[in-house]
């Protein structure tokens, strides 16, 4: 393996920050969902890179779990978005502000 691990770490950080960027700047709930997926993938890259780095399969197994949970999360998130849409006729997260002061 010739690619140094720092590169993977930096790549995953960049990916994570991009996902975060999406969450911070977008108002569409769907974009939230996608940004979260990007962030989860960034974490997965880290896990798998370090799995190889340490010669241990735990990271890979964990990555599988994360994937499964991400799938679950998307299912739930989708349900929430649909309810949101049904109630507000919109998927803009700034519209539902009933839980404010």
């Amino acid at each position, binding site marked *: 393996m010739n690619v140094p691990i720092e590169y993977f770490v930096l790549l995953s950080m960049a990916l994570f920050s991009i996902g975060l960027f999406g969450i*911070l700047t977008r108002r569409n709930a769907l974009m939230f969902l996608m940004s979260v997926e990007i962030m989860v993938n960034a974490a997965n890259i880290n896990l798998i890179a370090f799995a190889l780095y340490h010669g241990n*399969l*735990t990271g890979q*197994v964990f990555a599988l*779990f994360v994937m*499964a949970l991400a799938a679950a999360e998307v299912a739930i998130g989708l*349900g929430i978005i649909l309810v949101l849409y049904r109630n507000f006729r919109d998927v803009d997260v700034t519209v539902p502000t009933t839980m404010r002061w």
Partner: protein
Amino acid sequence: MTNGPQLRLGESLLPGILAVALFGVMAMIALNTGFADEMVGFPEGISVTSEIGYALFDFTALQSTEGSIGNTEPFLVSFLLVAVVLDAALDAALVLAKRETEGKPIAALSSVSTGDSASTQPAATDGGAEDGSSRSSGGEQR
């Protein structure tokens, strides 16, 4: 909807500075961390996929004993938990997605509208229209 892709830029990108800042901080930390040059890697001649399978199902006897890959922890319990969570997520998604008409669930997915489809009302969460009529608005059907 066949218009070409457009970038969405402008004022709303301002909070994104935070994300950039976070990347900067984390990158500084990562670059200042001394990683060892070579990776340990996996030994030759074993199947990583089977090893994952053994780990997931606690087949400790089958896990290769030679090489350094054998020290993977067993994950059966986690695996089962994840299975349960997935199941729960499936149910939850169904519950969230379905609508109720006066306490009676109607099919979450249906291709025909069950009432008059000329609804102009936004639907309410608990099903039914706000005026109390028993129509399930033919709004968004799936």
